[in-house]
């Protein structure tokens, strides 16, 4: 049997990758949204792992809710992205600095 720490470490690695994706990404918003997806996945992974480990079904059921919300969120994010592209002809992150002080 694979020890639980492996699962958790994997989840942490995915989470770190996604955060790094947000910070280091200077290119476009699409990558940003993907990083967010990845972050949700790592969290979901954590929930399933711990749910299974503790023998509690709630964690695994909760993942479905999270997935639904994530789906909605990404739909909205993509819609915003399209509107943004229409108005600015660009999805470059560096171009979105109109609130710069």
């Amino acid at each position, binding site marked *: 049997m694979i020890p639980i720490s492996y699962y958790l470490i994997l989840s942490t690695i995915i989470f770190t990758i996604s*955060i790094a994706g*947000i*910070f*280091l*990404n*200077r290119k476009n918003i699409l990558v*940003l949204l993907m990083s967010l997806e990845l972050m949700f996945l790592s969290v979901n992974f954590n929930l399933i792992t711990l749910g299974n480990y503790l023998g509690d079904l709630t964690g695994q059921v909760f993942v479905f809710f999270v997935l639904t919300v994530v789906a909605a969120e990404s739909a909205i994010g993509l819609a915003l992205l399209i509107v943004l592209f229409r108005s600015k002809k660009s999805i470059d*992150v*560096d171009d*979105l*600095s*109109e*609130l*710069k*002080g």
Partner: protein
Amino acid sequence: MINIALLLLLTPLIGTLILLYLQNSSKKLTIIISNLSILFSFLLSVYLLILYISSNASTLSKDVLVFADVKIYSLAFGLYIDSLSLVMCTVVTSVSFLVHYYSISYMKDEKSFNRFFIYTNFFTFSMLLIVLSNNFFQLFIGWELVGLSSYLLIGFWTKKDSAIKANYKAFLVNRVGDIGLILGLCLIFISYNTTNYNEVFQLKDTINNTNINIFGYTFNTLSFICFLLFIGAMAKSAQVPLHFWLPDSMEGPTPISALIHAATMVTAGIYMVARLSPLYVLAEDVSLFILYVGSITAFFLGIVALVQNDIKRIIAYSTISQLGYMTAALGASLYSLAIFHLITHAFFKALLFLCAGSIIIKCHHEQDIRKIGGLRRFMPITYMAFLYASLSLIGFPLTSGFYSKETIIDAVGYYGHTIPYIMLLLSIFTTTLYTAKIFSKVFFGECTLHLDNELKNKENDSEMLMPLVVLTIPSVFLGIFIYDSLMLGTLFGTSLAAQELVESFYNDYVINSLNFFLHSFLTINFLILLSAIIFGYFYYYKKSFVIKTPSFIKNILTEEYGFNIFSSKYIPELQNFITKYLWRRVDISAIDNGFVNNTSYLLNKISYKVRKVHTGFIYHYSLTIISALILLLLIIGYKN
């Protein structure tokens, strides 16, 4: 009785309201409404007075309407009916009616004819409110309304610059007096817990022994109340040093001067002190102060009249001087004598002013007596009326003014107030002299004005002359008619305190009115009067000699002891200085630059620094969020 008194009080107010509603009505309607309301009020007050005296009724004080009833006190609108208030009502309404009647002709070419009558009706109402009030609160309201209506009337000719300045001055000087009045009222309320006259009179003895501490000095509470209230009376009744608004109030129409000087305004202060005589009689030190203020006013401001050349200003100074007599009588605790002189003065001074108005109309609004002259020939009725009023003013034996004035002078002397007595005696001389001055210059000599021939042959309208004739009667005969009953206290009964002083003087010195009249020819008063008449005759009429007054004395007198320059130059300058200082230091430096502008400046400066945080890059924001989250988690973890 209360209902009739209420009607008497409210009729002029109803007249005012109807006139206000019918502002664009014809002149005829205005005349009818305004005159009828005052006439009705007059008839009611005469009826009430007769009813009161014949039925020997006692003092009646009743709250008609209570409009604020809190547990500890109540503010009420009430009426106080006794012979004093009814006599005052009769005087006020009779003079007011004659002035109204006179104004029909005097103001006939005026554009805002209606406005004039609205104001005068309201003026009469405000005065009646003071006279009939049964509590201090209502007195204060009436007091302020009188101030307001006098302000409106003095500045009736709103386009005349001097009139606006004069009404402003009158209003401000009265505000100064009101400070005293308001503080006095507050002190009464604090110490007695009531504003009702009767309740205060009942409690006066308990308060008389209490003291009040102000800035480390201890005063007797009652004396202090009396002193504060008297400051209010000083401003209203034009006593030194708050007198200087009165000569300037001559800027209003002449009937208004008659109204202010005779019936409605300046008498308010005298009336108030007489009404509160049960309090004032206990405050002996304040009474002494009042006596000196009165006699100083009577003497020194009578002298100023000698150097004036405006006919109305001379009469105005004469009013101040006569008010000084009344105040002196109040100070000597001879309250009924003060009221007596108030009544006779109301009639003969109204007459003098109405005569002056008649002269002014005739001379096309020329008021300088150096230019007017020789009017005796074509204004016989005005001439005769003015003659009788003058005789009454100088106190020529048998006239009303003689009885009231000589009695005050003799009584002040009788009770041993030597210095006031001498001042009052000497002002007989000045009174006679300035009267002789007006008389000889206006009615005799040559007229330098260019008058039309048509005007020369005809005297003014009968509306204007009728009040003169009517007013002559009380000016001459009222004194002897009421003298004995007044002195013996049967007229005012218990409404005035210290009546026994007057009575003992009467029994000791006067004996009866006829004896007083006959005796007067042998007194020093008559000697002074006679010498002044002879002096005036040779100096003003015959011009047989010329007196060179030293220029510095003349300067002092024409400057009116510096009160004029003080009030119209130094006080505004001081105020200007203070307000400019406050404007620069407080308004601009502290408030504008210090608080308002500095706040925005600081905010601006801070936000310039803070805005650098907003880089506009999403990863900066998210880094901040994440690092904050990690920090938070670390803190929570560390705590657990």
